[in-house]
């Protein structure tokens, strides 16, 4: 904090992981009055198996341990109801439609940050903070912009495209300028209990990563997504049966059964006929995609003809694309065809390091297969 900045009361979302722990510690170091909070998104009591993910009891207790160590208050916010309605229901309904949802994006866009801001306001906090690897800086036009985290391997701006833009003036990402290894090292030097805690990769409400099992508890037994259907080759030939399309994701190779003459990949899921369409690798590429209901973090969204960069999955590089249409969703044409453009996943749109916005991928147009 520069001397010119005043001491603020800041609410930090602490999941119990090393990143948000250090985010809180850095704000304390910066002289702010820091209030820690863990959002309880589901009841660990009902969860099968260990609750080692970020939102489980272990996470809450770790966050509290760190807060106690830092000498800051720590509270638990019960957001189970909102989370269930906004995130879990959406997750289930997307899979039921044959899409592959990204619940962390949904949570950031509609639940977590808004809720945090509201609760922060109720508690007299001027700002809110999280341990995301992303930066907030003043944009050339004077507004605020979200930029990729300095550590490009850890960058989490992809998950933030749906953030309400009115939030930015109150938002702090203390880790945006740091490398992950420095975060761990700093956490160790501050003797934070979470310094060496492993990364959590799971979706917090599907503790064992068993999506299919989770969907079975949430969908009616006879839901089409859980019923067997045809495995159809892109040539039109029915080549087998699958146990229900809910478990499948575009681009997936595993789980299709063996015995085919060539490696096959999921190309498309057709919920209305319960068909899972598969084909060879070279048919997995799309030239265009349609992004539904885009949200923008800029006052001047890209227009048809504009060149942007787009990232279509976490940990993939962004790739150049051109806006081909903005009416009825945002249509992008990739400069190079892209592999496994997956409906339901997020498309985050960048200009250089700057996150402009994004949306959900609604559909993709398969690229013409060139001669092999």
């Amino acid at each position, binding site marked *: 904090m520069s001397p010119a900045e005043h001491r603020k009361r800041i609410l930090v979302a602490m999941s119990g992981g090393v990143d948000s722990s250090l985010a809180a510690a850095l704000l304390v170091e910066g002289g702010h009055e820091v209030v820690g909070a863990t959002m309880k998104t589901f009841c660990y009591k009902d969860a099968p198996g260990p609750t080692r993910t970020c939102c489980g009891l272990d996470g809450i207790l770790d966050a509290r341990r760190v807060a106690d160590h830092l000498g800051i208050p720590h509270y*638990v916010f019960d957001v189970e109801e909102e989370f269930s309605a906004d995130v879990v229901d959406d997750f289930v309904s997307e899979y039921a439609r044959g899409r592959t949802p990204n619940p962390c994006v949904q949570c950031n*866009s509609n639940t977590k940050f808004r809720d945090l801001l509201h609760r922060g306001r109720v508690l007299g906090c001027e700002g809110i903070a999280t341990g995301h690897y992303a930066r907030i800086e003043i944009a050339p036009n004077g507004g605020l912009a979200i930029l990729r985290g300095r550590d490009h391997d850890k960058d989490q701006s992809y998950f933030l495209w749906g953030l309400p833009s009115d939030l930015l003036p109150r938002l702090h990402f203390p880790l945006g300028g740091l490398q992950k290894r420095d975060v761990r090292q700093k956490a160790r030097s501050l003797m934070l209990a979470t310094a060496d805690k492993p990364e959590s990769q799971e979706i917090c409400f599907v503790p064992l990563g068993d999506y299919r099992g989770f969907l079975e508890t949430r969908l009616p037994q006879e839901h089409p997504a859980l019923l067997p259907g045809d495995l159809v080759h892109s040539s039109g030939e029915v080549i087998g049966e699958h146990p229900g399309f809910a478990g499948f994701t575009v681009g997936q190779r595993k789980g299709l059964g063996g015995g085919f003459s060539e490696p096959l990949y999921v190309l498309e899921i057709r919920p209305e006929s319960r068909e899972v369409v598969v084909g060879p690798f070279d048919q997995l590429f799309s030239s265009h995609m349609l992004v539904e209901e885009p949200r923008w973090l800029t006052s001047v969204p890209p227009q048809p003809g504009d060149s942007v960069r787009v990232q279509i999955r976490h940990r993939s590089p962004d790739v150049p694309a051109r806006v081909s249409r903005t009416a009825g969703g945002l249509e992008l044409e990739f400069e190079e065809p892209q592999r496994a453009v997956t409906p339901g996943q997020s498309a985050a749109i960048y200009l250089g390091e700057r996150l402009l916005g994004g949306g959900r991928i609604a559909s993709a147009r398969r690229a013409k297969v060139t001669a092999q």
Partner: protein
Amino acid sequence: MERIYLDHAAATPLRPEVVTVMDEACRRFPGNPSSLHRWGREARSALEDARAKTAAAIGVEAGTVHFVRGGTESINLAILGRVDRVRALGASTPVLVRSALEHPAVREAMEAAENTGCVVQELPVSPEGDVDFPRSLSTVSQLPALVSVQWVNQETGMVLAIARVAERCLELGVPLHVDAVQAAGRIDVRVDRVPVAFLSISGHKLGGPRSTGVLVASEDAQIDPRIFGGGQEGGLRPGTVDVAGAVGFARALEISVERLDEESARLSRLRSKLEAGLLGALPGLRVHASEARRAPHILSIGVDDLARDLLPAALDLAGIGVSAGSACRSGSLGVSPVMRALYGDIAGRIAPVRLSLGWSSTEKDVDEAIRRIPPVIESMRNAGPPSGSEPSR
């Protein structure tokens, strides 16, 4: 900012007199009270003196007082020890009865018993504090192994009509366990006036040491131990007894009972002032258990349409320590069974706050609370509803 502690129902600071006697006991009695030598005798004599003082304070025989590690242990021992005994006597599915307002120590001990095949029955409590006893009990085909009813409710301060419950249990020949953790030292709990089989008291609610407590088990009460090894505490609670803890507990209980009348009048007056002050500043405030007799140390209020989990946090940030009903292990606040019983379906919309006073509470604490709490609630209200009401996606 000066801090105001209004959470004496959770833990009360040690009384200085207690610190003195414990300090002395630690230094004077280095031995194990079970040893036969001089050091053992001296420690034993201090322990038995503590037992006698405890017994006198609540009007029971010294032999019925068993020192244990706190209220929860006392309650668990009474319930589960009783279940073990009736099983040993041949009951296959013992019946346990409790009121709807019981503390989690009772509730969860009975749940644990339920998991081993016991049957648990819940008795409703009227807004006046009457336990709906006879009618409900007639639905049980077999006499209960134990009835457990609290004397004072931990969330609202409601005093339950224990005398009537005790009378009814006596008629039926059913042993009664009374959780007196919130009652002891706040109201008269002398059991020579109210016949009960078991009584649980905790030290740290009385200005005594943490992790101390007693289970009073009347001479004819049949109960088995839950842990084994050594014959201490009549075999009911084996393990070397913490002499200084027992001495501190006894002193704390003794002082609380000695000063009961004046202290209860003082706390009632402070509580009334707090209640009137808050009601004056915050119209529409709900005061819990107002139709019942209330223990003098608890003021339980409910604020409408305020986030349940934020009010205690906001008060904490304003330097005021309170509780909001019972927190679960994570610290997250669910709707407690007590609030559910009180409000039914709308319980989730009401933010409960328990303000509780104790021996160290002063007039200044109350004045300061009246000055600071209303603005906190006002500014929370002004923060408005969540802005995320736009449709998702």
